[in-house]
């Protein structure tokens, strides 16, 4: 797996700059993703990890310094569910309904324009997942859009609770049998699914609409799954259902719809304490739509802090990689984005993207 991504990764990058000794980004407003914004703050990355964050960080010997005064620095965005690089006709392998040993990345074509475009979106980490025509597929890797792409090879399994996983000539043809098969596969600790679950893979449970969401929650609760919910349908209608749960909830890009029932959902969910994340479900939307989604959510009432969290730490939680990415904390991966204005102000371009301490994108004014 990693070779494919490594090769592809280098291909995709716009001239990564190897900065073995480290990187100091200073002078800008730093949104760490955990607390208040630090005006005139700095982030020091050494050996690919965040080594220091604060106002009085100075560059050690040999560390390259980039002055971003007047600009804004935030953690790299995390897309917890993306099929980036999967051609639309190869999104699903339907020979088996439960396919826990399906190498998802095998179908990835890295030499595609959308992969190159993704680099400039600010997304630095994504969980690569297939479509929804199987009950269960995995393992889904968490990947970096950087020189060492594999963050976690078995980060997630994708579970689908809904009619999209039903085919007319394959067992199951109905939701009751689908749930039965899922329960069987997920509770078989000896089987390939059980091995993935025991290995810490997060179950990303896709559902569409209220009724499916209730069934997905039933499955998650009944099996005590480490899970995230990929919530289709209008999120505003599921607020009561999800409030008070310690369950990451992944919403598709808001760029897909102008309707209020979608736009107000993220704010309502976050307001009730739900850990919200946005996902591109690429190729349904592009990685760049993630930031747009957060901005639209703010426009519909979500607090900017919650929206930025959804874009970063929320995505990391939903991808099961919050220990590595999602915020600018010491010890975490050195992934950051520099934007010309506040991170969610779309009139400010993304100027610089750093992954594991290396600059993978630098905006060149045309």
């Amino acid at each position, binding site marked *: 797996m990693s070779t494919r991504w490594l090769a592809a990764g280098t291909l995709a990058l716009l001239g990564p700059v190897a900065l073995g000794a480290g990187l100091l980004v200073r002078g800008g407003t730093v949104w760490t993703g955990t607390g208040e914004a630090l005006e005139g703050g700095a982030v020091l990355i050494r050996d690919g990890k965040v080594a220091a964050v604060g106002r009085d960080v100075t560059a050690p010997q040999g560390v390259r310094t980039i002055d971003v005064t007047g600009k804004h620095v935030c953690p790299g965005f995390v897309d917890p569910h993306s099929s980036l690089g999967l051609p639309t006709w190869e999104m699903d392998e339907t020979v088996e309904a439960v396919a826990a040993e399906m190498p998802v990345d095998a179908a990835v074509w890295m030499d595609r324009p959308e992969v190159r475009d993704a680099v400039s979106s600010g997304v630095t980490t994504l969980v690569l997942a297939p479509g929804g025509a199987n009950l269960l597929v995995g393992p889904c890797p968490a990947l970096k859009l950087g020189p060492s792409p594999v963050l976690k090879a078995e980060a997630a399994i994708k579970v689908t609770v809904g009619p999209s996983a039903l085919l007319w000539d394959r067992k199951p043809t109905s939701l009751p049998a689908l749930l039965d098969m899922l329960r069987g596969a997920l509770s078989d600790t000896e089987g390939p699914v059980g091995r993935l679950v025991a290995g810490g893979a997060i179950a990303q449970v896709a559902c569409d609409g209220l009724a499916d969401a209730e069934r997905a929650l039933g499955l998650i609760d009944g099996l005590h799954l480490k899970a995230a919910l990929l919530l289709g349908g*209008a999120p505003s*209608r599921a607020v009561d259902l999800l409030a008070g749960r310690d369950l990451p909830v992944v919403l598709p890009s808001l760029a897909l719809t102008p*309707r*209020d*029932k979608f736009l107000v959902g993220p704010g309502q969910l976050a307001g009730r304490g739900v850990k919200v994340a946005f996902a591109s479900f690429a190729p349904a939307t592009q990685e760049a739509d993630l930031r747009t989604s957060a901005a639209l959510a703010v426009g519909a009432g979500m607090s900017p802090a919650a929206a930025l969290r959804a874009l970063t730490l929320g995505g990391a939680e939903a991808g099961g990689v919050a220990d590595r990415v999602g915020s600018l904390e010491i010890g975490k991966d050195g992934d950051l984005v520099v934007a010309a204005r506040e991170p969610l102000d779309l009139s400010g371009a993304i100027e610089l993207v750093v992954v594991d301490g290396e600059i993978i994108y630098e905006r060149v004014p045309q």
Partner: protein
Amino acid sequence: MVRASRCAAVIALAAAWVAGTGAQDAPVREKIAVKAGKIIPISGPDIENGIIVIQDGRIAAVGKDLEVPWDANVIDAADKVVMPGYVEAHTSSGMGTPNERVLEVPFVSAKDGVDPKSVFMEDSLRDGVTTMLAIPGNDTLLGGTGVAIKTFGLTVEELLVRDYTGLKISLQPRGDSSRMAHLARFRKYMADLDRYLGEYADRKADAEAAKKPFDEELDPQKQPMIDLKNGLLSAFVYCPEASDVVKAFELADEYKLKIVPVLGPRCYKAAGLLARRGLPAILDSALVVWETNEDTETEEMKVVPKIMADAGVKFALQRDPNNYETRYLWMAAARCVAYGISREEALKSVTLYPAEIIGLADRVGSLEVGKDANLLILTGDPLDAQTWVDQVLIEGKVCYRRAEDERLKRLLEERKPPPEEKPPGDEAKPPEGGEAPAEGAPADKEKPPAGKAEP
């Protein structure tokens, strides 16, 4: 005594009609007086204990304190309600296949498709529909011409009230065709027709100039469209969607057509348009349509006749004989009342308004002097679900009597003699109580299922 014997004669005559023994001949010459407990004339206020005098198949008088002519046969309906027969302004039922498969067949006539002996015709009479416009269905562009018929007669000729009434134009694209192509096809037909008529006029002028004989006859296949163009026929334009109503108006203006919109169930959104144009419309038999409000994710019930009435659109109701809930015009009218439309308007929408729409308001749709004596004698109020049509008079003749309706009896009663009661103690007695027979019973004593095979 004279009256009684005459009355008996009428009944005997009526029985003969019901039995269908004789062909219909000229209208009955006698006078008939119907003594009604209540008359609902539609055209005016209800009359308690009124009298309707019929002469030569037409209504000669309607009123409360009328003198019964000494020589009239009297139908005593003193405990019944009398109203005009229901009129349906549009139906394609009872014709077997209601459409040709070709898009442009303006020259076919529903007259050749109507089956006087169809169950539909029989049901129509039984349910009190006395007049209807049979017209080709909605599956082709230029579907053909309609025919106004009554619902009693052995042959189509006997059914005829007025031949050559209305031409069906359907704006429903066929198959995978598009609306663009569909309308373009109509316009092409009209352009071709113009060219044909232009050439015809040229040839005629040339012939006249040369003083040569000229064959005046127009292409009979084009005749209905020529009549449509000249305003001699109305176009019954089927509009499946509200946007098609706009198209129908455009075509009407463009080609100076007289149109009657025949609306699909979702056309309620065109109510304002119809009102502004002052056009009456024929509604679909589905009076309620559901619309999903995408924002609230609720289902909104749209009551089409109520929306039309509120907008000020006159409408006629239709049946769908294949649907259990929409088989009756009385029930459609009753549903309108349920949804808040006045009783008067509801009754007009199944009598006078459809009569107006098909241009027969001078003959049917209400009980007025001079109109055809199409009468329903009902056991009660027309909108009461327990009311039955007791007798139907069409053009002064009793065409239907419930007492002699054998099929209705069969429809309501058992078809086949009940199976004989088995003697008590028979093994088919319902198993009751006790432990399950299956439990503890040795398996080898069980009879295996006949024809059982290993899968």
